[in-house]
């Protein structure tokens, strides 16, 4: 996955993501594609969650999956999550759960609760940073004010080295793939470098929904695991998604 939040010169925040999933879950030799990735694509839906006939939040989901991976609380905040690998992983959390130790939260139920109940960027940030989890994760959160965006790197129990937008210091976007931002990504799977190269080449002056979509359409940021691309603008309350394909030659991940 690749998630990013960028601030344009007028202080608008753009939050976008490629959702990549299905690694090692079966390769279709004939079609040069991942089996599960291709099965997930037809399940992608955009959902408007309403209460009292008013939108509470909107999301891009896989039908049948009640948790949230990508969502917007219109005019308040935007949220995506990327997978994080750690030896202290989800299987330990699941084992604890089975053995009756149930003080952690299932990742996607937490993101669903945040989108459904939090009413501000700060509240969402606190919940995503402090709640104990069953599995490690990256939460990429955008607010509705200039400078409000961060990457929350979570272990099961802690938030590690939060990275915030800092436009004055020249950090006008934050970008997360699936590696801790203070470490180099695995050289076999470096999607961070090409994505940052294209963001820097775009420059803040030209950043927009369109040019962010260009970045997420550039291989290997776009790869055989990419199921959908979602673009969100909190100031307009807007979410749009597109199901992707990656024509050969294309990286398997």
């Amino acid at each position, binding site marked *: 996955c690749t998630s990013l939040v960028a601030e344009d010169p007028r202080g608008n925040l753009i939050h976008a993501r490629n959702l990549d999933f299905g690694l090692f879950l079966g390769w279709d030799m004939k079609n040069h594609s991942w089996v599960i990735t291709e099965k997930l694509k037809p399940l992608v*839906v955009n959902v408007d969650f309403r*209460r009292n006939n008013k939108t509470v939040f909107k999301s891009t989901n896989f039908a049948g999956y009640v948790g949230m991976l990508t969502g917007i609380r219109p005019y308040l905040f935007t949220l995506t999550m990327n997978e994080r690998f750690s030896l202290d992983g989800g299987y330990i959390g699941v084992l604890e759960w089975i053995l009756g130790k149930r003080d952690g939260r299932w990742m996607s139920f937490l993101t669903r609760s945040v989108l459904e109940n939090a009413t501000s960027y700060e509240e969402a940030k606190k919940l995503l940073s402090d709640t104990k989890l069953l599995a490690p994760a990256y939460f990429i959160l955008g607010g509705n004010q200039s400078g409000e965006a961060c990457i929350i790197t979570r272990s099961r129990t802690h938030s590690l080295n939060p990275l915030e937008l800092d436009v004055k210091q020249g950090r006008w976007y934050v970008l997360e793939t699936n590696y801790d931002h203070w470490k180099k990504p695995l050289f076999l799977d470096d999607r961070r470098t090409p994505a940052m190269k294209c963001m820097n080449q775009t420059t803040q002056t030209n950043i927009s929904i369109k040019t962010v979509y260009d970045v997420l359409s550039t291989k290997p940021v*776009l790869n055989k695991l990419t199921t959908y691309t979602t673009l969100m603008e909190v100031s307009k309350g807007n979410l749009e998604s597109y199901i992707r394909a990656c024509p050969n030659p294309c990286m398997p991940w």
Partner: protein
Amino acid sequence: QFVPPYTEDCRTEMYPPRGPTFQSAVTWYTVNLDSPPSKRWTEIITDKKDELVSMVQAIKDLADAFVPSGRLEELIDKALPMMIDTLPYPFNEEMKGIATASGVPLGEVILFNIFYEIFTV
């Protein structure tokens, strides 16, 4: 660009989405949070039932590939439903509604929804 990782020059003018990297648009649905949890996803699941069954079957085929005896699949269908009421409300009720609307066994719906934690294995 023609050797792994096939890094391209930065793409431009890709928006609005079209061409070989754009497979299709995404359909919008409404979920009414005032409805009972077990009814919320019925419209979506009714539309996407075949695709959901097909995706779950692909995961089962994978499970069988790892454990040809079928024991893993049996475990999913027998053990996971026993944990449904340990999962937080209203998500447990929503999963029950999805199983009912799709005909997919509850254990397999649960597996799909906790796949993130399981997959870290």
